[in-house]
């Protein structure tokens, strides 16, 4: 059921307006997805270069010298180039993949539809948001090709290495300026996006759609935008400060009396730890920005495939909200041994330990909702179930890192690298994959190839465990991170483990090429998809495929039901759509 719209906007005309500088949130969502796709494969390629070098340190990588003659003379990677590639890998993946895909891509496409709106309230800001992010990506990538290459300071860019200029190493001059400019632009883009997301959720819901009737994916995008609003607004100033230190001769981060190449640096003072506080105040909430949308997407998909409501949708929403709030109180756990006041370390460790509680509740709700369900297995649900397993695995290593005393042994080791790769590099990615398999039919009108999807899943699932589980063991035995080479008696015996990991990485990476092939092949030659192939209930499944430019063909839908009325008896089957006026009996109704 729907009412005619009191006003509706004109459809776009012309190629540029329709496909390039589009105001349509769906096009913007697809543009973000495309950006994330390109970034993901570049980031993955970088990881292959890194893993190869760690396993076979002095072997030439054919062709690498064409990317950088000084960084890889004769194809053999130098230590500085390893660090430069590593920095770009982290920066590209965290910002241009994990923030763009689950949040900006799927969120832009589906949030307005899931609230029943024609578009977001500020389509021009939304368009700017994508293009600013795109320019940010170009600025970052340009650092490969200018001067002495990208910055080598890690995606965390600690001071004072980030502010002393090229005397600190290759890429520390122009490379840092480009990095900081790129990230500052990225922050602007995401703030514009967050503005749209929050306004859409609060102000544009159609009749009958109370907040509690929003699908969990919509909730997760809303919560993520709230986190992003605060986090990105703090990272941007930090980037501005470091750019000023480079180009304007200011000294925010460089202490006095530092000596490089026997010369005292001219800075009169500066605070090393200031950068870390600003960065991690952003950085910890950022990882929740990376994971919460995937949590929402996975919940949304699992519900459609379990054919029953979640044990408690309300508890899930509150828990995600609790994660968001707590995420601001824990950032100091990245700084336990940084030299900050040791009492602060203890203070930060307690909320960090407490944050395990909402995380556990979320996992329990998912898992115990599976009880008594009628689970359907397909690519989307497999990745969603895989997400739960990966999130658990990545989450339990958090128990260790939350305690400062244990962090003494695990800080800056491969244990940390294993932890964050499992939660971000795998779990969050699985959310993106699940969302793709699930929503591809609605976005393109075709189904993705299910066989290839399953092959993609199995190789990725087993492969990712083969790569990242061993990282924890390496960390526990004392393998330090961010080393380009293992030179000594202590670390050399671990090289066979690294070789195993590298081979697993190549296999898992290959599986992602299967996904890419599936994506493109299905786009043009996939089986035609019905409007609601999953028999799902939320608003996106009630409209045409793909949705028209104003989402609902000139009408405003009216919502009659909670988002996950599965397991009921209705005229269409065991579910009733949110927009269906049909009354059904259900014991699971939530107000």
């Amino acid at each position, binding site marked *: 059921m729907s*009412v*005619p*719209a*009191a*006003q*509706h*906007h*004109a*459809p776009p*005309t*012309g190629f540029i*307006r329709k496909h390039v500088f589009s105001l349509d949130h769906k096009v913007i969502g697809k543009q973000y997805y495309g950006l994330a796709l390109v970034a993901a494969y570049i980031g993955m390629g970088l990881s292959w270069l890194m893993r190869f070098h760690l396993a076979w340190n002095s072997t030439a990588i054919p062709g690498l010298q064409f990317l950088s003659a000084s960084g890889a003379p004769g194809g053999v990677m130098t230590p500085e180039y390893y660090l430069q590639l590593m920095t770009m890998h982290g920066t590209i993946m965290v910002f241009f993949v994990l923030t763009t895909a689950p949040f900006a891509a799927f969120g832009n496409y589906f949030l307005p539809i899931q609230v029943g*709106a*024609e*578009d*977001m*309230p*500020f*389509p021009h800001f939304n368009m700017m948001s994508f293009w600013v992010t795109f320019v940010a990506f170009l600025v970052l990538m340009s650092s490969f090709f200018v001067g002495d290459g990208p910055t080598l300071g890690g995606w965390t860019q600690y001071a004072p290495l980030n502010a002393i200029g090229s005397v600190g190493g290759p890429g520390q001059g122009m490379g840092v300026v480009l990095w900081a400019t790129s990230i500052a632009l990225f922050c602007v883009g995401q*703030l514009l996006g*967050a*503005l749209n997301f*929050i*306004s*859409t959720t*609060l*102000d*544009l819901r*159609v*009749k009958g759609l109370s907040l509690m009737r929003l699908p969990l994916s919509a909730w997760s995008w809303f919560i993520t935008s709230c986190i992003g*609003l*605060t986090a*990105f*607004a*703090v990272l*941007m*100033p*930090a980037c*501005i*400060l470091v750019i*000023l230190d480079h180009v*304007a*001769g*200011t*000294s*925010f981060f460089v*202490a*006095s009396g530092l000596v490089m190449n026997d010369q005292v640096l001219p800075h*009169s*003072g*500066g*605070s090393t*730890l*200031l950068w870390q*506080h*600003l960065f991690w*105040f952003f950085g910890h909430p950022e990882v929740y920005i990376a994971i919460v949308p995937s949590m929402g997407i996975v919940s949304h998909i699992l519900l459609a495939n379990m054919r029953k409501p979640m044990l408690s949708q309300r508890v899930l929403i509150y828990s995600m909200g609790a994660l968001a709030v707590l995420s601001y109180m824990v950032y100091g756990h990245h700084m336990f041994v940084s030299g900050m006041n040791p009492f602060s370390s203890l203070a930060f460790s307690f909320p960090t330990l407490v944050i395990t509680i909402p995380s556990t509740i979320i996992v329990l709700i998912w898992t115990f909702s599976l009880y008594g369900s009628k689970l359907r297995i397909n690519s989307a649900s497999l990745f969603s179930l895989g997400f739960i397993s990966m999130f658990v695995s990545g989450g339990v290593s958090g128990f260790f890192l939350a305690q400062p005393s244990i962090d003494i042994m695990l800080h800056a080791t491969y244990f940390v690298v294993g932890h964050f790769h499992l939660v971000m590099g795998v779990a969050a990615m699985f959310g993106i994959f699940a969302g793709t398999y699930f929503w591809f039919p609605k976005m393109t009108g075709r189904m993705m190839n299910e066989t290839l999807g399953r092959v993609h899943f199995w190789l990725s699932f087993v492969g990712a465990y083969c790569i990242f589980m061993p990282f924890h063991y390496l960390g526990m035995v004392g393998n330090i991170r961010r080393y380009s080479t293992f030179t000594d008696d202590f670390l050399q015996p671990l090289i066979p483990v690294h070789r195993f990991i590298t081979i697993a990485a190549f296999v898992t990476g290959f599986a992602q090429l299967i996904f890419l092939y599936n994506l493109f092949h299905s786009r043009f030659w996939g089986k035609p998809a019905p409007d609601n192939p999953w028999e799902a209930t939320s608003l996106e499944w009630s409209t045409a495929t793909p949705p028209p430019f104003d989402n609902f063909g000139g009408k*405003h839908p009216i919502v009659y039901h909670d988002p996950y009325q599965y397991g009921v008896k209705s005229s269409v089957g065991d579910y009733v759509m949110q927009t269906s006026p049909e009354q059904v009996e259900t014991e699971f109704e939530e107000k």
Partner: protein
Amino acid sequence: MATTLHEPPQIDLNNLSGAGNGGSIGIPKDGLRATLDHSPPASSSAIWVALFAICMMFAAFTSALIVRKGSSMDWQSFALPSILYFNTFLLLVSSVTLEVARRRVNAFMRGARSEAERPALWLYVTLALGLVFVAGQYVAWTQLRAEGMYLATNPSSSFFYLLTAVHAVHVLGGLGGLIYVIYKLNNLTLRRNTLVATARYWHFMGALWVYLVLLLWFKL
């Protein structure tokens, strides 16, 4: 770029603030003013979202200032350029003129004929005051330069220039908003929500400036 002209939307005069109507300023007795409005529905929460983000940014700069001042021995205090206090006064006055403008525009859009002649007058006054403020900030910078305090001279001067510049950039954004409001008003397509949001933004710029002046005065 061609736009298709649709039929005038069916507006229910008895249900003006319902969903889908966009919260437009009321319909006067002698006809529809918003017939060609193709904008998306209004969002009243958006301005608060934006202001919150701006707050967080200045909070980050504030903590940077406090930490930087306390971490090294090189902080050199200086007196704020005197024109700053005059600029503050101007900005606060502009908030008053904006409120006057808002009331007059509301009355005009509701059809009160007495305001028919220059509904945008007080908006122009606000705009002018805002421009003079920004110019005054530039004068403050030249005053400081004359004393030999540049961006990189000392962390104290760095923060002075940084904070005033970032604030000025946001004020320029606010001026852009005012111009947009004036433009929409002259086209008779101004929505109440746009005016309210712009006014809130402008007042926030004033409040933020008072905060910054106090911060700079105490810390510098």
